[in-house]
């Protein structure tokens, strides 16, 4: 009886400790974000930021644009086969544009970004920690949060919305290629239906808000996982996996909440 009680008690203790750990790491992540992201950048900081923007933005452009093209083409193909049943293939442009701007561009671009740039950020910062570069920076009086983390964080926050815009544009063009050039939807109705139904603030603006939120969350998770990991090779591999898993879940979960607030009529 007493043994059983002890086992239950220890299990409860473990559960409580796990909860405390979770809250603690959440708090650490918040303090970390506030310390690294807030502040006026120096000229050197801006140069570092540009270098990171090149890495997370320019080099991610190819994969994001190619994915956008294919997703736009698939949307047009799928939409056409359904809409033609109702004789409503003129609404193809509207369908492609709205699904891209509201949902697919922000979400898919964020998922690709987490895989392409987020994991690399985690591994890079993690390796810096494991090889004690961050500690040496502190020793010579350079704040690693400002020098290493801040440029990466801000580069991610700026890069993802731009990538999302590119994704939408290329996707809509891909829809045009398949719908108009290949399947023969009338070109005028493709664009005019789109223009009649897409609102600049309501659809494009809300899509951009989503994209900025995803950018902050994904980059935050990536740099924090890199900074907070166990400085071993196993720790780096685990943190990189965690970055992709956590940011994908966070993006999809937040997407539901943001959609409910923006378009759900709440």
């Amino acid at each position, binding site marked *: 009886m007493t043994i059983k009680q002890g086992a239950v008690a220890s299990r409860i203790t473990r559960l409580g400790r796990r909860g405390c750990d979770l809250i603690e790491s959440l708090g650490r992540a918040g303090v970390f974000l506030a310390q690294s992201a807030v502040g006026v950048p120096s000229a050197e900081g801006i140069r570092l930021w540009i270098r990171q923007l*090149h890495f997370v933005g*320019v080099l991610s452009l190819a994969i994001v644009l190619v994915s956008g093209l294919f997703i736009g083409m698939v949307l047009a193909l799928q939409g056409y086969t359904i809409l033609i049943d109702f004789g409503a293939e003129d609404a193809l442009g509207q369908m492609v544009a709205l699904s891209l701007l509201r949902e697919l561009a922000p979400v898919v671009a964020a998922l690709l970004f987490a895989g392409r740039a987020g994991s690399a950020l985690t591994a890079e910062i993690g390796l810096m920690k494991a090889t004690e570069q961050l500690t040496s920076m502190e020793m010579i009086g350079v704040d690693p949060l400002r020098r290493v983390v801040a440029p990466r964080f801000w580069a991610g926050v700026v890069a993802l*919305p*731009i990538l999302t*815009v*590119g994704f939408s544009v290329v996707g809509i063009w891909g829809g045009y290629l398949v719908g108009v050039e290949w399947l023969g939807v009338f070109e005028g109705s493709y664009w005019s239906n*789109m223009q009649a139904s897409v609102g600049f603030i309501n659809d494009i603006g809300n899509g951009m808000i989503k994209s900025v939120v995803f950018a902050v969350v994904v980059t935050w998770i990536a740099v924090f996982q890199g900074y907070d990991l166990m400085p071993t090779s196993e720790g780096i591999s685990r943190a990189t996996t965690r970055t992709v898993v956590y940011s994908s879940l966070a993006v999809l979960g937040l997407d539901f909440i943001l959609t409910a607030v923006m378009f759900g009529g709440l």
Partner: protein
Amino acid sequence: MKRSRAMEFGVGLFILVGVLGMVFLGLRVSGLSFSGPSNTFQLDAHFSNIGGLKPRARVSMSGVTVGHVESIELDTEWYDARVTLSLDSELEGQISRDATASILTSGLLGEQYVGLSMGGDPDMLEPGDTIRDTQSALVLEELIQQFISNMASN
């Protein structure tokens, strides 16, 4: 140094792509025009049934969009729907007192909008006035019900 210049050029190009993409989305996809917020004036119209009309639905005259639905609320005095229309100020003082407002549907299953048609009265409506002559939305169920009861009585 040379590599850093190329990199900065790439980043500049990347940001430019973002700005141009945004311009494309604004102009080509959402059909935004830079005419700014045009001046409008408001008219009320009472309908006994608005069907599926929503705020921001368009108001058209002879098929030309001349404004949008500003708000829809229940008039508790008459228990009908008071629809406030926001129209281009070009039309201010140009709509005759016996103009008709009707709720129409674009296409068979399309969205509903308000169609205005002019009357012949020389008196014109002032901002804030109410359009007297209105036609409610066509509700398909009521139509079918009427049809069936007509058939039954024949």
